[in-house]
């Protein structure tokens, strides 16, 4: 990257040298991808959503490939917050990775507890709050599918965190009105939103003639869902043009990432694409920079939300 082009981005107060992030759950805790590229060369590692207790997750089969996509039903398998803080964060910090920690809970209280545990851990750039989890206190209804539950989680986390760490609320696309949920969580204290989590889907195994996944339903990800992600980003940016958005959903090339930036994302997470190509995030990062430069942008930031501007404006006019 030459000095003329500013590739950096911000999510709230957190600064990142590039807008490319791993997607939560698609990079484990970072170590495994480090065999393929240095983690410090990307914007940040977003760690797999961590819960309070260790969890075994859902029964197998946990995945099914679908046309240009896949379903997963992992069930938030993980070591629990204690082991995570003891083992994973220090390793990432040692390896000079910027770290966004994703948290998940079953109750509003659990999210707050996770935030309390993480508050004073050094080396964390931001919290991503994954609210696509069943709320055990509300008939198992996913937090992100209910405005009040979504707000309650973010409010609880914000109270604990104070102004220290940016809070990114990760929303589900499985809602009638994603803009109202986004407004709700911002109102409750989120500094930004991550769009989108997986879509609820199902595959029937035509041999067993039963749902293929051990968990029956699963989350649909990959290129198949990209148009839904771009739409969500566009809608939320239109409603709140200043709100930092971390875009994701089916990005596998620089052109895909560019779509999200133009729609209004300040950063882009690469998830499923890393399964097919361990260097996907590096390839996306390189290509996105080239595409932005070719279009006359001299910074990433001047391209954010460009698709909303009136059709006559050229990149140069936005550089003032």
């Amino acid at each position, binding site marked *: 990257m030459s000095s003329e082009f500013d590739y950096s981005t911000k999510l709230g107060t957190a600064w990142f040298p590039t807008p490319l992030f791993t997607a939560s*759950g*698609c*990079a*484990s805790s970072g*170590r*495994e*991808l480090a*065999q*393929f590229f240095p983690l410090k060369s990307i914007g940040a590692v977003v760690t*797999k959503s961590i819960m309070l207790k260790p969890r*075994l*997750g859902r*029964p*197998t*089969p*946990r*995945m099914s*490939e679908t*046309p*240009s*996509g*896949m379903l*997963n039903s*992992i069930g938030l*398998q993980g070591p629990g917050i204690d082991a995570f803080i003891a083992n994973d964060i220090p390793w990432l910090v040692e390896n000079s990775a910027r770290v966004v920690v994703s948290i998940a809970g079953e109750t509003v209280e659990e999210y707050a507890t996770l935030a309390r545990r993480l508050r004073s851990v050094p080396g964390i750039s931001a919290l991503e709050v994954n609210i696509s989890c069943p709320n055990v206190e509300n008939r198992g209804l996913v937090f992100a599918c209910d405005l009040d539950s979504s707000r309650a989680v973010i409010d609880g986390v914000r109270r604990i965190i104070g102004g220290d760490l940016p809070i990114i609320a990760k929303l589900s696309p499985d809602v009638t009105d994603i803009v109202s949920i986004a407004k709700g969580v911002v109102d409750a204290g989120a500094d930004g939103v991550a769009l989108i989590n997986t879509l609820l889907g199902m595959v029937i*195994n035509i*041999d*067993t003639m039963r749902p293929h996944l*051990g968990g029956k339903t699963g989350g649909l990800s*990959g*290129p198949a869902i990209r148009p839904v992600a771009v739409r969500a980003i566009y809608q939320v940016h239109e409603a709140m043009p200043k709100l930092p958005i971390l875009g994701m959903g089916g990005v*596998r090339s620089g052109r895909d990432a560019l779509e999200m930036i133009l729609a209004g994302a300040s950063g882009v997470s690469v998830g*499923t*694409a*890393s*399964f*097919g*190509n*361990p*260097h996907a995030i590096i390839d996306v990062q390189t290509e996105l920079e080239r595409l932005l430069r070719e279009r006359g942008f001299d910074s990433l930031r001047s391209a954010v939300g460009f698709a909303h501007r009136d059709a006559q404006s050229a990149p140069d006019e936005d550089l003032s």
Partner: protein
Amino acid sequence: MSSINRFAKQIPAHVLSNKRVGQYHQILLNIGDLVKHCHPGNFVAISVGGDNSGMILRRAFAISRVSDRGEYGGTMELIVAPHGAGSRWLCSQQEGATLDVVTPLGSAFGIPTEPVNALLIGGGYGSAPLFGLAEVLKARGCRVDMILGASSTPKIYAPLEGKRSVNSLKIYTEDATSGIHGRVTDSLREIIAQDQIDVIYSCGPMAMLSAISSIASSMDVVHQCAVEEAMACGIGVCMTCVLPVTKDDGSIAMLRSCIEGPVMDGAKVAWNLVGQGREVKA
């Protein structure tokens, strides 16, 4: 874990040949210097369908054999069963085609430091990595017996040159079209006892590995098996390929078979919990 996949690389590999062998395709790839790091048990993950394919995930195949001699430099051989759309596409690739491969991945079979009596058991294309393993074991002075099984003869993979590297080879078919009528586990107890087997190496369908494990455990024989779970990433980042494994304290851990496997200690896998009793379709 940080040592695993240390040598894994994503490279373009040319198809040097693609021959039908029974129901399988024997595919030879040019992979250059990477052969140095490939060990029996490791696998390769291959992109299928070409650019703009709707199949976004790699397909995993055991490395059957590698060689660094020969006119093409380092080569890797795979034995591929045309199963679904991805493996069929792979089987249709002609000499000269270029594949996108990531290899070597996963754990390898552990090689004993002393000469022991080893029994290698393969089901279907599961025999593929066993011949390379047999060579390594022979070189260490082990006695190597092999048992192969399949539903029918065309699903037995047992190349001539491979047979040379084993002391004995028994074949079982369920339809009696060749060898002994039945399954590899039918006389396993007797064979273990008679041949004073110290260690079993196995590769094949999960049901077979499970059956071998229970016999091996009951007779206190070490059992290293190469498992086969559906894998989305093959590099340890997605958590789809997990198997329930009993830890030392008796509790269950869900280990990733791509990175904490595919070679696992058969005695530790909690076979009764795999897929909560529902088998992954092989």
